[in-house]
């Protein structure tokens, strides 16, 4: 008999989620989302911004290329598996 544990977990999970949702609505958590966007910036940035360079930007593009290459390899596996995996 394992169902009672699953069912109690699901019930408790739903109940907690519902309570949190109602609390969030009541306390206006979903209002004024424009202001919420700025919350990480309201505190002073007391460390000066590091200097940027062209190399920093190129480094990021290289990472994107890396990710695209990985995705391409994954897509090749997907296609090969679908065509020859039967």
């Amino acid at each position, binding site marked *: 008999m394992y169902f009672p544990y699953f069912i109690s977990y699901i019930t408790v999970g739903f109940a907690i989620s519902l309570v949190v949702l109602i609390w969030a609505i009541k306390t206006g958590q979903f209002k004024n989302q*424009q202001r919420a966007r700025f919350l990480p*910036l309201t505190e002073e940035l007391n460390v000066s*911004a590091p200097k940027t360079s062209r190399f920093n930007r190129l480094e*990021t593009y290289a*990472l994107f290329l890396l990710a695209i290459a990985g995705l391409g390899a*994954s897509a090749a596996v997907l296609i090969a598996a679908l065509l020859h995996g039967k």
Partner: protein
Amino acid sequence: MTAAIDDKIQSHATAKGFTLTSACWMVVGTFMGLLGATELMAPDLTENIGWLVFGRIRPVHINIVLFGFVTPGLLGAAFYYVPRLLRTEIYSEKLGVVTVIAWNVALVAVVISLCMGYTQGREYAELIWPIDIMVVIAFALVFINLVMTVKNRQEPVLYVSVWYVLAGVILTATTYSLGNVIWRPNSGALVGIPDAILLWFYGHNVFGLLLTPLAAGVTYYVIPRVCRAPLYSHTLSLVGFWALLVVYTHIGTHHLLQVPVPTWLKVIAIVDSIAMVIPVMAFLINIWFTARGKLGEIHADIGGKFVFTGTIMYFFVSIQGSMMALPDVQRVTHFNNWVVGHAHIGVLGFAGMITLGGIYYVLPYITRKPLYSRFLADLQYWLVLIGMVGFTVVLTIAGLIQGNAWLNGEVVYRILPEIHPYYVTRAALGLMVFVSALIGLFNILATLFFNTREAAS
């Protein structure tokens, strides 16, 4: 301004404690990974040394990386940013320090018990009952501290990072209890197929409901600050948050597609695995649009650089994960080294990178000193990145060799000579990651204790 003044009298002891915990245990966790990889390459290396056999080293590696390196690092950052976002102080630094100590005691117990052979024998849920209880208590203490901080807040609106960290901590405490069957102390398991279902419900959620929310919380805090730009959309971030909770909880059974579990459960697992695209893209679109035009700024900041790389790896690992849930793909990719490669992109490439990013971002703030060495941090970044990408390549190739050979009816042991070169390469890459952990530990220790320079204001 208030937060900045308060910041000067705060000790940040909890954040420092978790940060140091993460740095120290990263060394242990990566060493265990290196040792395990070496044993796969040279199985007789630890012959007749019972407590160092692969079957004991692997769970130590996994549990220490999960609970010793990644989770404390992300919590260290959280204990810094949660009070900042709520414009208050942490509820209790004393409770935080007690939690850090209890956490470390549990980690020592993890290593000793697993090396001695005390295990529940269930993947990702190996820890025995007394340690299960310690883990649950540690998460409960973290939750109490954070939720009381929320209660004492001056900022009425909870930023999405706060939602993520609170959810991650409490959901893990509960799913950990359920997945480890803590109401059965003797076995820590159910019997038969229900146990497999429960185990993978937990096994997948420990990544999706612990590492993912904590890493997302750090990312949502660090990226806007590094870019000095507001978040692209807070509404979208909340959509992603709730979608993650709804979708992720169902997908564990995609590990059991080739097992006689109920078909309806498999269908739910597959459909929700594909639906994971929704929370993943909600998160990534939000972060990448926030960072639009600021790529140079991100890579100029070492914390931002680690975190942003983690988001790219998240993109990759999530698409791969959805794809792997398709039965036709899984017939080739499951139960072999492909999955090991996938797990390394997720835990090291995504969560691990963001952990290091979070640590390096908050260190100057919690110590009020600049980082000891930007060069060493950059070196660590490249060692981790090259090691992780290398893992992905060699383990994917090894996995495809195994998967295709097995599908063609080949037996397991005849494939081993074919994948041996990849195991050798994997161990060499593991050495790079271990060295990076040593460099990181030195840099963090030096910043915390030996750095006499003051932060530039």
